């Protein structure tokens, strides 16, 4: 939902252009030096437990039989039925196809969004053109408006194009990320020195050349962060996919909705499906968690 929004930051137009190139301005105090007492660890440990427990429980429930789950006291350790439940959910809810579709949809959205947003972010950050201010205001102004409010005309449009139940119905609207444009603009304003562009221009480089040889290499870390956040959001997107797609051509979230909609009664099978649908994001998160944390915190103070 609103994960991909950045705080309204003070307009940084006042930043003097003679900022030393390449050097990021250090923000305020670099963390406090006070040490946390044992109580801090206890409270944080408890918070982590609550964060993690539903995941653990998913594994437990997915590896048991439905009868096990209706036991009092409930069993708190994983059981032997994981593979069997996986097989059953792959058969009953077509999770395999859903995983493949989600991979296609999320990757396309990620690639397209990062490209569109880097192009537009670069133009807004470094090129001069008429209407730049107005267009940027329009983009940022709509950043906060939930796209969910536009689903009815969007659905009519998709129906008109006969795209219902086709993956492009989810991919194309997913490419619109006002946040991404804003994010890339902020990134380039801060990390791409004007002098570099000027020098390239003096050497006779075209804007396209400058974009490919100078902007992209510098923007790469920002693009990576935007890519990770976009992938996660796209993978987890719920409202629009369940409207535009159906069980014939499901993404993971559509399949999970089917699972939860009473189509399958076996709780352990439902949990097995949930586990399968969540694993890919958890994998990404396990590998890139640090960067994602950094991206979110950066997004929060950027500008």
């Amino acid at each position, binding site marked *: 939902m609103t994960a991909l929004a950045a*705080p309204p930051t003070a307009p940084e137009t006042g930043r003097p252009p003679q900022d030393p190139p390449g050097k990021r301005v250090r923000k305020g105090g670099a963390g406090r030096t006070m040490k946390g007492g044992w109580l801090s660890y206890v409270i944080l440990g408890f918070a982590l437990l609550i964060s993690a427990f539903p995941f653990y429980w*998913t594994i437990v429930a997915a590896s048991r039989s439905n009868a096990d789950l209706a036991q009092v006291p409930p069993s708190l350790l994983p059981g032997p039925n994981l593979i069997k439940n996986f097989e059953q959910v792959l058969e009953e809810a077509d999770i395999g196809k859903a995983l493949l579709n989600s991979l296609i949809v999320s990757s396309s959205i990620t690639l397209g969004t990062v490209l569109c947003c880097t192009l537009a972010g670069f133009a807004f950050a470094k090129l001069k053109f008429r209407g730049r201010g107005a267009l940027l205001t329009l983009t940022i102004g709509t950043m906060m408006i939930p796209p969910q*409010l536009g689903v*009815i005309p969007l659905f009519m449009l998709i129906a008109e194009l006969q795209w219902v139940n086709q993956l492009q119905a989810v991919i194309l609207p997913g490419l619109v990320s006002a946040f991404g444009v804003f994010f890339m603009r902020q990134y380039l304003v801060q990390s791409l020195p004007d002098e570099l562009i000027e020098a390239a221009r003096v050497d006779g480089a075209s804007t396209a050349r400058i*974009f490919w040889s100078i902007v992209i290499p510098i923007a790469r870390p920002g693009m990576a962060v935007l890519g990770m956040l976009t992938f996660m959001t796209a993978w987890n997107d719920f409202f629009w996919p369940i409207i535009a797609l159906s069980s014939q051509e499901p993404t993971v979230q559509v399949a999970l909705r089917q699972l939860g909609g009473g189509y399958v009664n076996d709780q352990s099978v439902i949990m097995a499906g949930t586990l399968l649908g969540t694993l890919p994001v958890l994998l990404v998160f396990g590998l890139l968690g640090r960067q994602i944390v950094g991206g979110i*915190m950066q997004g929060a103070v950027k500008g």
Partner: protein
Amino acid sequence: MSLTATAKAGPRGPASTGPGPDDGRAATLRRTWRKASPYAYIAPFFTLFLAFGLFPLLYTAFVSLYRVELQTSGEMEWRGIANYTALFTDEYFWISLRNTFTIGVLSTVPQLAMALGLAHLLNYKLRGRTFIRTAILLPYATSVAAATLVFAQLFGRDFGLINYVIGLVGFDPVDWQTGTVASQIAVSTIVIWRWTGYNALIYLAGMQSIPHELYEAAEMDGASRWRQFVHVTLPGLRPTIIFTVIISTIGATQLFGEPLLFEGSISGGISHQYQTLGLYMYEQGWGFFHLGRAAAIAWVMFVLIVVLVGVNALIARRRARKEAGR
């Protein structure tokens, strides 16, 4: 539309190297391209933005004045404000409006309060802090659907783990599905679980941008840790807090996935006890096939968001002024 026209031109620069000897036409061409080329860079985004972002948003208001049915979404019949009057006389609209509000408060207030506390702890020097930060964000990585399915199980009336624990402590099991308050608490819990860590990290980022000298000064004045938190941290965090309040308000207004999948019913429980506006819109549009009425609900939600955000901003500004005046 000049936007799309320049888009087709594609980004290609002048082939010549540098400002050579001026031969009139080529120079003019080059100058024209120089002026037009920035539009080529924003064209891909804006084409998509207009088609799939801005147009649907604005057209919603238009559709809400027509009778449009799901199966024949190409045919529109003028209804004027009839969709709205039908809405305002529908008991379930008011129920879902009330539910949206109560679930919004139940989920947002504890969520942000806990996030603030966690951020304060995370701001200490801690062992394994990268691990803690990552782990605390884990719920944010799960989808609404997955989280809700798991919590629906945990909140089961007969065999749910939560009722089991409640039983251990010696209380009667709670019917988390049928009771209005209980079901709304359960739905709010899912929201709180998913978003507390995210907000804690946002607060943490805000805290780290508060200048260290302020704390040193406060310490020299003999302020306790608690007073430092109240008089240095909180004022320094004000913009961040306002931001999270606004974002959470918007999120709460359009809450949808959690109530839909909690029991898998589009009416939000047997007596609509936890149906939110988002779910009500979905029920009207894709349950009863009334797209026009669904559009009217979307537009009401939009106005609601604008009003709520406006009120938030107003309160924030008034408080800031009061504080500055004292």
